[in-house]
């Protein structure tokens, strides 16, 4: 089964869960006075989910013939073995690590690590330049966002700023 139909299956399952909530559990919480209104919080979702289920079924069952796509220049799953999947996965893991570390170790350290490890993953081996670029960038962005624009960004680790 092609990827687009697998995705349609996943969407269908999500829709079923969403639809179950809309049709069976949401209305139970509704205060009686609201039940006299022609529109309930669940009305719009109920309409949506029927459309989404029908559409995902139509893709899953292949009702609409998709045009032959042979655009070699664009991204293509059949060339997956040529792609640098490892690098992409590592960078995504790095982004998750950034999200988790941003608060505990502060913006400056997290950003410095993100930029330097990121370019390391991509194959950069000039460590001096790497560290210099990452340090300048982290400092500049923090200065622009926090000082110039006035959007608060906690710069230092949590134990230093008392938060």
């Amino acid at each position, binding site marked *: 089964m*092609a*990827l*687009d139909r*697998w*995705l349609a299956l996943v*969407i269908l399952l999500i829709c079923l869960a*969403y639809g179950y*909530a809309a049709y069976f559990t*949401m209305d139970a*919480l509704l205060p009686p006075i609201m039940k006299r209104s*022609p*529109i309930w*919080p*669940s*009305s*719009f*979702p109920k309409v*949506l989910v029927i*459309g*989404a289920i029908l*559409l*995902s079924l*139509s*893709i899953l069952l292949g009702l*609409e*013939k*998709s*045009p032959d796509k042979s655009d070699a220049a664009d*991204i293509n*799953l059949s*060339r997956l073995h*040529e*792609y*640098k999947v490892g*690098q*992409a996965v590592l*960078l*995504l893991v790095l*982004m998750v690590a*950034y*999200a*988790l570390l*941003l*608060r505990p170790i502060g913006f400056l350290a997290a*950003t410095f690590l*993100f*930029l330097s490890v*990121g*370019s390391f993953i*991509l*194959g*950069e081996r000039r460590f001096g330049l790497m560290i210099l*670029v990452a340090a300048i*960038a982290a400092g500049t*962005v923090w200065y622009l*966002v926090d000082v110039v624009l*006035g*959007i*608060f*960004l906690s710069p230092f680790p949590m134990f230093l700023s008392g938060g």
Partner: protein
Amino acid sequence: MLEGLLAGLSTAFTFTNIMMVIGGCLIGTFIGMLPGLGPMSIIAIMIPVAITIGDPSAALILLAGVYYGAVFGGSTSSILINAPGVASTVATSFDGYPLARKGQAGKALTVAAIASFSGGTIGAILLMVFAPALASVALLFHSSEYFALMVVGLSAIAAFAGTGQVSKALLMTFLGLMMATVGEGVLFNAPRFTMGVMDLQSGFGFITLAMAMFALPEAIFLVLDPGRSKTGDGSDSGKIKNLRITREEARKITPVIGRQSLQGFFIGVLPGAGATIASFLGYAVERNIASKEEQEEFGKGSVKGIAAPESANNAACTGSFVPLLTLGIPGSGTTAILLGALIALNVSPGPRLMVDEPQIFWAVIISMYLGNLVLLILNLPLIPYIAKVLAVPRNYLIPFILFFTLMGAYIGQNNATELLLLVGFGICATLFRFADYPLAPLLIGFILGPLLENNFSRAMQLYDGIGFVWERPMTLGLLILAVMLVVLPGYRARRARLRAEGVADGD
């Protein structure tokens, strides 16, 4: 209209706002050149900045400046290194890059800048004429017509986005609408579909979603396929000399610019069509009506081939502001993000905007003229320097793009969960791209979702049920139009296929 114009002039011509235009255009050009960051991502990154400014006119002027700058920056990288940063400048690379290869990059850039300037300016004049007229019609609309109009917009976007795969585009639209129902809506004071997660109480952040749908997959593709980005050699970018064009060339491109500005504008007004379609169509039309020997030149460095898509895409960008400002309905991903920004700034675009807050409306139009002027007289001479950004090696460029997407989602929210959502949605979006699901319909559905539900609910309450659909002829007409937009392409494709197989007979 005149007093509105004057109010707009006095708003736009303050020092701050002129700086906003100049700054926006420069930032837009700078980032728009980078592969992987199109106007949508750049505007999404700039929204927290714009919101901090607080003044809606200034914020909107900044974002509009960024938008033009980004489109112009995209053309620059198309011409210099054949790497369009944006889909709408792909057609520019057909003739721009060959001309740059001949050592005439400066000329190609000048033609592009003049064409963009004229397209944008003519577009702004047309916007000034058409938007008030359309808005006065739109004032007669009730919530049921708004509901129907949004349905038309969404189905038009789906019909255009998924050529031959309307069901995928529609499914994405529905998914976007469903995601918009998560969290505590304005209509009902109760959280919906949050599964008890506190962070979902206020729903998904639209900047997070915009980043995850566009910037992140593009960055991941740059990592996956190193051949996709042609940055880093820097060999062509250093040689921009001689920005002049000859009188003969100017004479050649003038009619092209005139025609394509008009055509581009009207294509831009249509929901779903937008700058990409306008630029390709403009290129095709001009090639078809050119004389025989000029046709030969197309694709080898014809100045007409640069002028046509450039004037068309800029006029279309301006045209796409018409439905946004008069109806509050975005026709493209970029204007959908602008709509999100406006809502965040407590401005509700629509026909009332021109009546209630004329200074915002007119300041935006004035800033369009200014923006185009800035691009022509400020950015063009700076291009040789700005183009140095193209020489940034990939090993540094990609971590920075990823970092900017993270920042866009984090700034203003200060919520690390948003970043995890960003990565999660980004992975989903990448899978969707691999499977040929268009992503713009999802985002537009997500942004229009609350407005759609609001108008639907109001109409339901007013008519005490679904009766408004047949009691208001205009609503019914619009809804029928929406169905036709979705069904017709599929029907025609099916008939063409059957005919090709020799089954169809009769007509």
